[in-house]
């Protein structure tokens, strides 16, 4: 099955995230996953995947490494684990997580092992 991320991605602005997610929630979409990755410009690219009736939709946006992203865990409770994971592995700050482990979800030997600095 061909499912290129490019085909299902919707580019948004970081500020739009909360509004878009609550809209998708209202439509009965289910949070599938949140992924973070580095870009060539040493920014972080976030991918929020949603699904409804086997139709996928990926909200994506880029943020600089020192930015703060608003948590969506107030709407999708299940997002709290993904957001803690992103914080612990990438060092990206996420505000207002429902259950904030304060960086203790993964206690890795190298702090923020997948962050842009430790390349």
């Amino acid at each position, binding site marked *: 099955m061909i499912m290129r991320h490019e085909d299902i991605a919707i580019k948004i602005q970081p500020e739009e995230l909360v509004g878009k997610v609550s809209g998708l929630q209202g439509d009965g979409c289910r949070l599938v996953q949140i992924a973070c990755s580095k870009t060539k410009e040493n920014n972080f690219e976030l991918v929020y995947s949603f699904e409804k009736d086997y139709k996928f939709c990926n909200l994506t946006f880029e943020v600089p490494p020192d930015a703060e992203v608003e948590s969506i865990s107030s709407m999708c*409770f299940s997002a709290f684990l993904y957001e803690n994971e992103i914080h612990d592995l990438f060092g990206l700050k996420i505000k207002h997580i429902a259950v904030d482990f304060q960086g203790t979800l993964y206690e890795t030997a190298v702090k923020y092992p997948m962050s842009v600095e430790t390349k």
Partner: protein
Amino acid sequence: MSKRTIIPFGPQHPVLPEPIHLDLVLEDEKVVQAIPRIGYVHRGLEKLVEKQEYANMVYVAERICGICSFIHAQTCSQAIEDLLPIEVPERALYLRTIWAEMSRTHSHLLWLGLMADAFGFEALFMHCWRLREKILDMVEDTAGGRVIFGSCKVGGVRVDIEDAKLKDIVIQYNDLEKEIKEITDVFVEDYSVKHRLVDVGVMSKEDAHVLGAVGPTMRGSGVAKDMRTLGYAAYKYLKFEPVVETAGDCYARTKVRIREVFQSIDLIRQAVAQIPGGPIAVKVTGNPTGSSFQCVEQARGDVAYYLKANGTKNLERFRVRTPTFANIPPLLKMLGGCELADVPVIVLSIDPCISCTER
């Protein structure tokens, strides 16, 4: 007026198969709150993409989990094939389907055994694993490994199964089906088992949806969603319906998995009947570019792969969201207000695989 006790549950606890830690706040024997803690077996496999060639990532993906190993390899291969992009021969798709369903039957039997152990039924546990062993023997006979199949690669599969052997698998499954029925009937009908499963850890359809439950955990609550319907591999040629139960308790989740065992056996029969001849792999050339998103149904639920490539032989990002990761928030919901004696049963009912979760 009862006193509150905090029971540390895990990371090393005899009933938990893997290291998850739960702080259970108890009032007498009633759980008021459960606070999870993971991160005991984090292996940094996602970081490994920087060192491994993309073709080797299939081996890494396969070792994310010892039970759903084959489906991890299959999903990883699918994603890389998507990035390259290449067409996989039909026969390889069918073989992948057969192995994936074999993996599902052995995973579910393993889970049924662990579940029996969680509610203190040792004999049932042993008998489930006795049957699972026969499936593992078949896997070893066809793929070469017992739990790490090692038979999937980018562009197809690594070994072929001869037609005679395929027929033999169906014959063996026919015999096994009767034995599995004998054991699973105990789960469905026995009084003491039902006493431990019915109305335990109830999760409503709405909660299952909002909390993002996946796989049998979700289907036990009445959401009819099975990623195999997407039609990857050879599923587009096979007839099946997602298995759904509506009660949302541990009994419903057990019944979903039991019915899925028989569904998988049926899918194997269909696949063996339809499998075409031809090559089993195509040559892989070039380096992947772009990004791919794959969602594949594992025994525990759907696994989501998000792969990003940059035209070199190493992938840029290798993101795996395993089913247990998505099932932890529903688990916390189910644990609130349950009896201490039901905690292992509820934890087991999501089929936790913590090593998968932490990759």
